[in-house]
């Protein structure tokens, strides 16, 4: 029976071309400004987000004991100096300050204390924000850094997670290990901190030479978190700092069911850990994102991305195979064609999604199948339109022309 499979035919080729032409037109149609939010939303949908938010059992994710987060929101320069001094006494591997430090004119003594302590320690990395991304030349034109009178020559790392996307609307899935500024190459804040903890692991990341690295999320509850006020008050265990990376910034749980004025919408991000992919609140602070990135670097759990050629080949392959299969069913079992084609589409979609999840969870491989599913759905319609309509109409038209009849 399989001998009747007509694999390489001109018709199948034409049908596949029509499917991709329609996919192309569809994308263009969505570029109308009214549909912009809809397009942005659909662009932002990744079914694999569900793996982090629902499928992976939270209890199976191990806590990262290499990193301690300290919630130091609205900390004064004087308190920051005191906090660093206390942490330093416990011999941490490194301290990361996710804050732009400016002079506090109301407390110059606090500034002096902070200047002294920061310049005295060599294992401090301070956050730096890159601005004005030039998409044409692929570099950042500006930056915001801490006051040089305070931080001196202390090492900095960029804290950007995006190039120029609007963080209000885009789910944060990737980080930027290295980016280009106008005259410089900037390493990420998290990568620099990972270097302090495990230089080999950080080098491994850099050797991958990817401009964007997909983050393997642990969550916010897998890191030890303390409030700076407790530490300054001396109410803490020294072991939480010794031989660890200590990150200072905003770190607290965003509790939607207990809304609070504390949650200022300034350093919050949407991550795949947020269960609701529709209307929802952002769920993670920047500092917690850095902690997740560092954890991924240290554990070396990187996601491998689908090669570009496979991204285009997979939908073409699925579409073409469908055309062959539909043609076969249509020839041999006409009555069953309509029902079985729907069944095949549903089955294929489920199978593709299953393979995608399997690759993602087991092999840490990001297989993009949405294009293939879309092509699969369209192949159904185009097969019928071409086989039962377009082709017969053209065929009859040509016949009439050959006979010299009017169309």
């Amino acid at each position, binding site marked *: 029976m399989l001998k009747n499979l007509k694999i390489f035919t001109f018709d199948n080729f034409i049908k596949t071309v029509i499917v991709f032409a329609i996919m192309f037109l569809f994308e263009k149609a969505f570029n109308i400004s*009214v549909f912009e939010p809809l397009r942005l939303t659909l662009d932002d949908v990744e079914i694999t987000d569900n793996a982090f938010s629902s499928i992976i059992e939270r209890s199976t994710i191990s806590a990262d004991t290499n990193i301690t987060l300290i919630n130091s929101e609205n900390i004064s320069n004087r308190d920051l100096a005191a906090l660093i001094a206390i942490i330093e006494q416990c011999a941490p591997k490194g301290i990361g300050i996710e804050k732009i430090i400016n002079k506090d004119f109301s407390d110059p003594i606090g500034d002096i204390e902070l200047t002294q302590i920061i310049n005295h320690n060599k294992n401090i990395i301070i956050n730096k924000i890159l601005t004005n991304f030039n998409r044409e030349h692929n570099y950042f034109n500006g930056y915001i850094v801490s006051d040089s009178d305070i931080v001196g020559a202390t090492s900095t790392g960029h804290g950007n997670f995006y190039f120029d996307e609007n963080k209000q609307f885009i789910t944060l899935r990737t980080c930027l290990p290295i980016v280009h500024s106008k005259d410089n190459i900037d390493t990420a804040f998290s990568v620099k901190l990972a270097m302090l903890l495990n230089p080999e692991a950080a080098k491994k990341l850099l050797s991958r030479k990817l401009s964007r690295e997909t983050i393997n999320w642990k969550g916010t509850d897998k890191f030890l978190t303390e409030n700076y006020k407790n530490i300054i008050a001396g109410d803490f265990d020294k072991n939480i700092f010794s031989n660890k990376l200590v990150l200072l910034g905003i770190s607290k749980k965003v509790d939607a069911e207990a809304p609070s004025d504390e949650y200022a919408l300034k350093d919050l991000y949407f991550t795949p850990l947020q269960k609701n992919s529709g209307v929802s609140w952002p769920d993670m602070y920047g500092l917690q994102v850095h902690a997740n990135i560092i954890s991924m670097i240290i554990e070396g759990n990187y996601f491998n991305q689908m090669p570009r050629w496979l991204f285009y080949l997979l939908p073409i392959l699925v579409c073409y195979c469908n055309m062959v299969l539909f043609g076969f069913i249509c020839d041999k079992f006409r009555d069953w064609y309509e029902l079985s084609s729907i069944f095949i589409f549903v089955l294929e979609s489920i199978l593709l999604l299953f393979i995608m999840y399997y690759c993602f969870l087991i092999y840490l491989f990001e297989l993009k199948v949405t294009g293939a599913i879309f092509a699969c759905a369209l192949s159904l319609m185009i097969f019928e339109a071409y086989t*039962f309509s377009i082709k017969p109409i053209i065929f009859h038209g040509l016949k009439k022309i050959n006979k010299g009849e009017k169309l």
Partner: protein
Amino acid sequence: MYKLLKIFHIDHVMVCIIVFLVLKYFPYFFQVDFLNPIQNIMQDFDVTNIVFSSLNDKKTIKTDTNIVLVNIGYLKRDGLAKQVEILNKWKPKVIALDIMFFKHKTKELDSVFANSISKVENLVLASRLNVDTNCKDCEEEDDPDKRFDDVTNPIDIFGKYGYQGFVTLNVEKPWEEVERTFYPEVNIKGKHLISFAVAAARQFDSIKADGFLGRENRSEIVNFRRNTDKYLTLDWDDVFKKQDSLGFLKDKIILMGFLGPDLKTKTLEDIFFTPMNAKYIGRSFPDMYGVVIHANIISMILDGKFYNRNSVIWSHVLSFIIIYLNVLLFSFIRKYDIDLYETVSLLIILVELVLYWVIILAVLNFFRFEINMVGQFYGLCLITTSYEAYHDSIKPISLKVFGRFRKLISRKNVKES
């Protein structure tokens, strides 16, 4: 031509039944865990969002000068008392406080505040409706009388000085739902209660407010037109700094509520997603504080620009008619020229889907009428597949099976005879 167009035929009805069955059971497919992201987005989508977010030309919408918003920031009762005193000095028509005064503070603070509000001529205070926790289907329930079973009022020493209106909005989970509608009035345990915005509007213009209540709708679509940029807005410290130059407050409705620690800093307290959000679908930051939603409701009542919508029954009837007409049209095309059918049916559905959006958006935008036909949209998407599945598979297979069964029976009868 008429012979080709058999209007009433069992096949047409069967196709309609298939469409409705698929419509009913198709959503279950998306309840599978791994399709959650798609389900979430489909649930959020509402056509009103496009109108309020993109089609309304914000430049043409004028500032509503009847209402002045006052941010209370983190002021305590003594600070609020001072604010009220300053504002009341300028003789506004109504002062409405979107603030929960359900608990006593210190005696001093309470008496200072009570003394301050006692001087306000038309005061509206906020009460809160409490959801009936025993009601099983209350989340889907659109009848507020069933959904709520109790009301929390301001403490007596404040409550006696003003009218009360409930500030409770329709959404139960503001962190994952869009606020689109509100309840103008509810009846709880025999008590008739009106919403905060309606109570404030009634103090300002009782004829318009009563006219609005006369529509007797259980819930009303909020005509979202303005955010803080389209109202006269005072930050908490502006009231103190500019206390001698607030003459514009005379005869206005003053709405006092939380608009952030200051007007520049947005927080997640008492803030909602509304259809005015620049991004009308998917992830975005919440865009409107509760007190601004009340302001929009008051503006709607005073402007008399309400939204209407068709009932669910009409929606089903309309959906059936449109699906039936399509089935009829497809049957006609198939009989007229079967070669044309596949391409033309696809084009027809494509044109209809575009028309569907255009009509719904136009009617909503120009006539403020919401045509509730979500089912019909999915029905249109499914119609060709259902039609073909029935005519080219289900029907011929059933006929063959039936034929064989009949042959089998007749053979059996022959043998027996």
